[in-house]
């Protein structure tokens, strides 16, 4: 068992953000690097956010309202030969859940680019974020980065991952190799936080299947190509799972000290093969993501190899009703061969959504979606609205509502956690 190095990461991230600020100052005042650095760019955003849960929580210690402040500065330096350094920090303060207040080093990498005959190569060394996949309801094949779960339960936001990332590309496609020397554990909401399981997850007690613990050297590779109407990616990952098995506490703890009972995350060694494909034809996007994963435990705690996929598409009606607006219709089906033994909520779920892009000055857009569990009929609704208020100010509203959550559904503990999130972002 390894103590989770939460503090170390928080410190590292804080140091990164501080270094970023100092470097920015140094560069902009021209104190150093005049000859070395060809161009630089300092940008970022500050967001004020309120998250409100209209329903009383399932547990009395959970809070209904949180004020949040988020800072995300970014610095980019480029030398005359094209080598560049990217630094991106992130900090969130949440008044309602101290675990959700967190710092992260999203990116801190050196990028080298070159060419050997007709092949282009690219090497990224440091912390980075990588995205694989095509689907909207779930990012199934995307595995390189750990999910920043406390950021958003949608699993869309990712933590920075230390890596060496080599890309070689040519007329034959793009091949990528990843060396991942360090594992980052997932942070689950704290006791006072919402959108958590009935039993909290002990973020300070993390277990690894590998004796090397978080220092197990993971590897990943991906080949992708774009031919005509098709964009296809094939990937493989071998190493420490990003999704932990949550071990229930021993029954005796409920008798001795119920407050100490917590789930303990266990990260197994897994191998995952992934496929992602999209066909783009006229106004249609047809999408498929599929994985085969070996080495992970199912919900019963037994090791079970499984296959999962998300398939669907998107059709856009341009200039709908003779306006400037575009209406996108999305439908996706999620399946997991383990069905009720699956460790996530996507064992047999359908997703339908409507996306309305106003194409106006303010780049207004609205996405309304529903995810329905075909087995339990549990539903969750999600709506996202974005609008630019001025050249540097944007408004983002997100609402999620749970409906008809069955007692045996994986999201039962969050049934009272409907929320509305209103954010105002200043970008520079």
């Amino acid at each position, binding site marked *: 068992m390894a103590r989770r190095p939460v503090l170390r990461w928080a410190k590292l991230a804080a140091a990164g953000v501080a270094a970023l600020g100092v470097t920015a100052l140094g560069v902009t005042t021209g104190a150093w690097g005049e000859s070395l650095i060809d161009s630089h*760019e300092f*940008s970022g*955003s500050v967001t004020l956010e309120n998250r409100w849960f209209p329903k009383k929580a399932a547990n009395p210690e959970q809070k209904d309202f949180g004020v949040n402040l988020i800072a995300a500065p970014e610095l*980019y330096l*480029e030398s005359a030969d094209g080598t560049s350094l990217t630094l991106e920090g992130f900090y969130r303060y949440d008044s309602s859940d101290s675990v959700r207040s967190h710092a992260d080093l999203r990116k801190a990498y050196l*990028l080298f*680019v070159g*060419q050997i005959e007709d092949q*282009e190569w*690219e090497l990224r060394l440091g912390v*980075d*974020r*990588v*995205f694989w996949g*095509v689907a909207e309801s779930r990012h199934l094949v995307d595995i390189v980065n750990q999910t920043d779960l406390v950021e958003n339960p949608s699993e*869309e936001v990712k933590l920075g991952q230390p890596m060496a990332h080599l*890309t070689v*590309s040519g007329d034959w496609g*793009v091949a990528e190799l990843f060396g991942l020397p360090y594992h980052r554990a997932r942070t689950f909401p704290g006791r006072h936080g919402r959108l958590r399981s009935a039993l909290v997850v002990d973020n300070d007690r993390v277990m690894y299947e590998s004796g090397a613990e978080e220092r197990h050297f993971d590897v990943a590779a991906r080949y*992708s190509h*774009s031919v005509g109407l098709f*964009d296809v990616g094939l990937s493989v990952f071998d190493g420490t799972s990003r999704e932990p098995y949550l071990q229930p506490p021993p029954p005796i703890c409920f008798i001795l000290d119920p407050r100490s009972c917590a789930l303990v995350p266990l990260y197994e060694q897994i191998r995952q093969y992934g496929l992602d494909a*999209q066909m*783009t034809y*006229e*106004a*249609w*996007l047809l999408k498929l993501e599929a994985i085969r994963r070996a080495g992970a435990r199912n919900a019963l705690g037994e090791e079970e190899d499984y296959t999962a996929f998300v398939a669907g598409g998107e059709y*856009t009606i*341009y*200039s709908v009703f003779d306006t*400037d607006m*575009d209406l996108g219709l999305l439908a996706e089906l999620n399946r997991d061969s383990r069905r009720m033994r699956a460790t996530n909520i996507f064992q047999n779920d359908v997703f339908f959504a409507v996306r309305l892009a106003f*194409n*106006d*000055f*303010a*780049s207004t857009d609205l996405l309304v979606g529903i995810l329905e569990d075909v087995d339990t009929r549990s539903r969750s609704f999600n709506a996202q609205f974005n609008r*630019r208020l001025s*050249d*540097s100010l*944007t408004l983002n509203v997100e609402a999620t509502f749970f409906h008809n959550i069955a007692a045996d559904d994986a999201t039962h503990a969050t049934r009272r956690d409907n929320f509305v999130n209103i954010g105002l*972002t200043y*970008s*520079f």
Partner: protein
Amino acid sequence: MTRKHRVRRFLAMMTLFAAGMNCLAAGQPAVAQNPSPEARGLEIAREARKRGEGFGNLVSQLTMVLRTAKGQESRRQMRLKTLEVANAGDKTLFVFDRPADVSGTAFLVHAHRDKPDDLWIFLPALNRVKRISSANQSGSFMGSEFAYEDITTQEIEKFTHKYLRDEPCGDLACTVSERTPVGEDSGYSRQLVWHDKKEYRPWRVEYYDRRNELLKTLTLADYELHLDRYWYAGEQTMVNHLTGKSTVLKTSEVQLQAKLNERDFTRTGLRRAR
């Protein structure tokens, strides 16, 4: 193959052949005295393209000022990079700088002469490269009065051309040609283009919607000569006659034959674009 098909195919081939002859004829002054309006239209379009060819690649700074009928203003700023591909569609990269919330968002367009363009978008927040449909040719580009089809390279193969008349435009002598989109994705039934006779620069374009009503007018101005050969308009003004809205597109810091190559216009290049 049925007999009917064979006949039809033969007729089609003859038409193509005739069209080819017309093209050849266009290059020969003796016959060019009285070419058909279609041949002359195509010749003007070809000559305009020829004069723009050979620039290799281009980097420029674009500023868009969007105005409503009531006079409200909004600004967009982006960098445009174009790579010329010999005898095929150009490759274009747009990288947005302003507004700040979309800073870093980039579009990659691989234009094709014989099929719809390929289009990818890079979303920096998710580090995601996404292939998107290029069927939305008539959609607004960044909320402006320019549609995607107005702003990306318009390959002449995507239109049929017809010369209409000579007409003065300002101090210059111009030709007026009509071009009709071949594909179904276009939002226009036809366009009228004014080219000056000396340099074949477009000075004015009228866009007619699917109901054949005048929808928008583009006026080009402040032409600048680069490398003693290439003319680029410094200011393009698009006015929408239906809504009263307008967009001024300013091009500055034009740099031809910059340090760009094929690898800046790939999906991995898009991921790196800044």
